[in-house]
């Protein structure tokens, strides 16, 4: 142990705030990225699972265009 | 080989001809150049003590931004009207045609900036020798800006928010040229020999001439595959 006491360890001879703020920011931001990556992964898994559960309707029937006027008089 | 050269000449001539018929596109970067330079005396200080040492840097930054502003036009019109597709389908190697377009771009933006530089250099109180060196660095440096810029312009072709993206991608790549450009002017102002730095900038130019057109050609193929 390079320090005599816990207090010395925390103050680090006056350099404590610099050292500890560095370590805090390092771990905080790293954890944010890791957590964000995990949340995103869970979101992707859930979306995919839901997609497989529902029958896929998109693109199975090609809509035929008749260019019929849309009635907008009822308002 | 002969057909390659004549095709390059045709590409350059077409670019120069179309630009000369839209002089506003040519004038815009020059006006921008003047405006940016003007901001420094107004925004920081009109004193000789500030302007003289900072002048080289100010002019270099302004020139860099002007070139950046003009890059958007380099391929966009050609992309919109289909000229770029036809260019890609020419039997000549694409990088040569891209090189021709980059040279045309420099002749139409970089060179006028260099010509305008002595005038603005006097306005920021640069002295005779510094002005000469500044022009020389811009003469060597602006073609590098056009060549590297072509890569960015090709990559952002057809994208919506191309402007900011282009700056974000290209400015980091411009930094070496900017550093040596301004550094050389500063060294000249202190009376130091600058031949070495100029030679190094020449090496940058040679490197950009040989590599950038390949990257820009590859980027164009990618952007057109998307269209």
């Amino acid at each position, binding site marked *: 142990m390079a320090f005599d006491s816990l207090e010395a360890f925390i103050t680090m001879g006056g350099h404590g705030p610099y050292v500890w703020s560095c370590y805090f920011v390092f771990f905080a931001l790293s954890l944010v*990225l890791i957590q964000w*990556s995990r949340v995103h*992964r869970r979101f992707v898994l859930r979306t995919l*699972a839901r997609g497989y559960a529902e029958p896929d309707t998109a693109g199975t029937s090609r809509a035929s265009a008749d260019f019929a006027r849309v009635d907008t008089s009822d308002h | 080989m002969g057909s390659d050269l004549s095709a390059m000449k045709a590409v350059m001539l077409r670019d120069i001809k179309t630009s000369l018929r839209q002089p506003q596109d040519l004038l815009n970067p020059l006006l921008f150049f003047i405006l940016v330079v003007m901001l420094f005396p107004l925004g920081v200080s009109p004193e000789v003590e500030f302007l003289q040492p900072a002048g080289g840097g100010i002019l270099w930054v302004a020139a860099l931004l002007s070139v950046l502003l003009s890059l958007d036009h380099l391929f966009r019109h050609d992309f919109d009207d289909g000229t770029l597709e036809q260019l890609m389908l020419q039997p000549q190697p694409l990088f040569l045609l891209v090189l021709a377009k980059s040279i045309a771009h420099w002749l139409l933006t970089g060179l006028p900036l260099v010509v305008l530089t002595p005038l603005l250099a006097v306005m920021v109180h640069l002295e005779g020798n510094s002005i000469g060196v500044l022009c020389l660095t811009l003469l060597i440096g602006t073609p590098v800006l056009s060549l590297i810029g072509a890569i960015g312009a090709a990559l952002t072709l057809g994208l919506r928010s191309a402007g900011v*993206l282009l700056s974000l991608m290209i400015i*980091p*790549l411009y*930094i070496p040229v900017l550093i040596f450009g301004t550094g050389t002017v500063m060294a000249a102002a202190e009376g130091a020999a600058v031949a070495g730095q100029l030679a190094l900038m020449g090496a940058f130019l040679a490197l950009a001439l040989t590599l950038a057109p390949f990257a820009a050609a590859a980027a164009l193929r990618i952007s057109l595959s998307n269209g």
Partner: protein
Amino acid sequence: MWQIFHKLGSPKWFYGIASRLMPWLLWVGVALFIAGVIWGLAFAPPERLQGNSYRIIYIHVPAAFLAQSVYVMMAVAAVVTLVWRMKLADVFVKSVAPIGALLTFLALFTGAVWGKPTWGTWWVWDARLTSMLILMLLYAGAIALGRAIQDEKSSARAVAVLVLVGVVNIPIIQYSVEWWNTLHQPSTFKLTEKPKMASEMWVPLLMAILGLYMLFGWLACLRMQTEVLVREGRTRWVKELIQQGGTR
């Protein structure tokens, strides 16, 4: 040889191997990194000139080290993307670019905070910090370009070109920034100037670097797996994998 290469490019194969590798990478990485950091923070002797502020080195140097090598790894993957059109290479580039950007930011931040007790100012335009700042912009450019292009293949190839152009420029940028630095600050104390480090100082540093490498590998695998799931969502193997609950 070709078969191995082809296998490497198969997302399904990657998914399986990554799942097996990840626990190892995570736990060995955590153990090494935490051990290195605790050793460095609490047990390594103080540095002669800087006192205790140098203890930032145990995160600053690993972050800076990794930030640079991630970009080089991306450049290698970019070559693979352009030459062999391997999808997985692009998955790698897209997945690790944000990690690289974060590490670059952390290296910058810790470097700046370190500068305060060392130089008495938060930010110094020294060669190392300036190059790091430019590296962060290169990362940002690659991420922004990748997001701006909708089409998957075009985006992969465009980012690959940009990363390659960037990696060619990195030595030039570094050289010019160093030259510029000598022009403006003839004599400053440099972070890079390695004071003779006692083995109690550099062994934990080595551990922290190794540990962070493994943690990077773990997070890269995690993010790559997610990206693979997104891209291959319509294939049979992903469907089976998810329906069998093989993704826990």
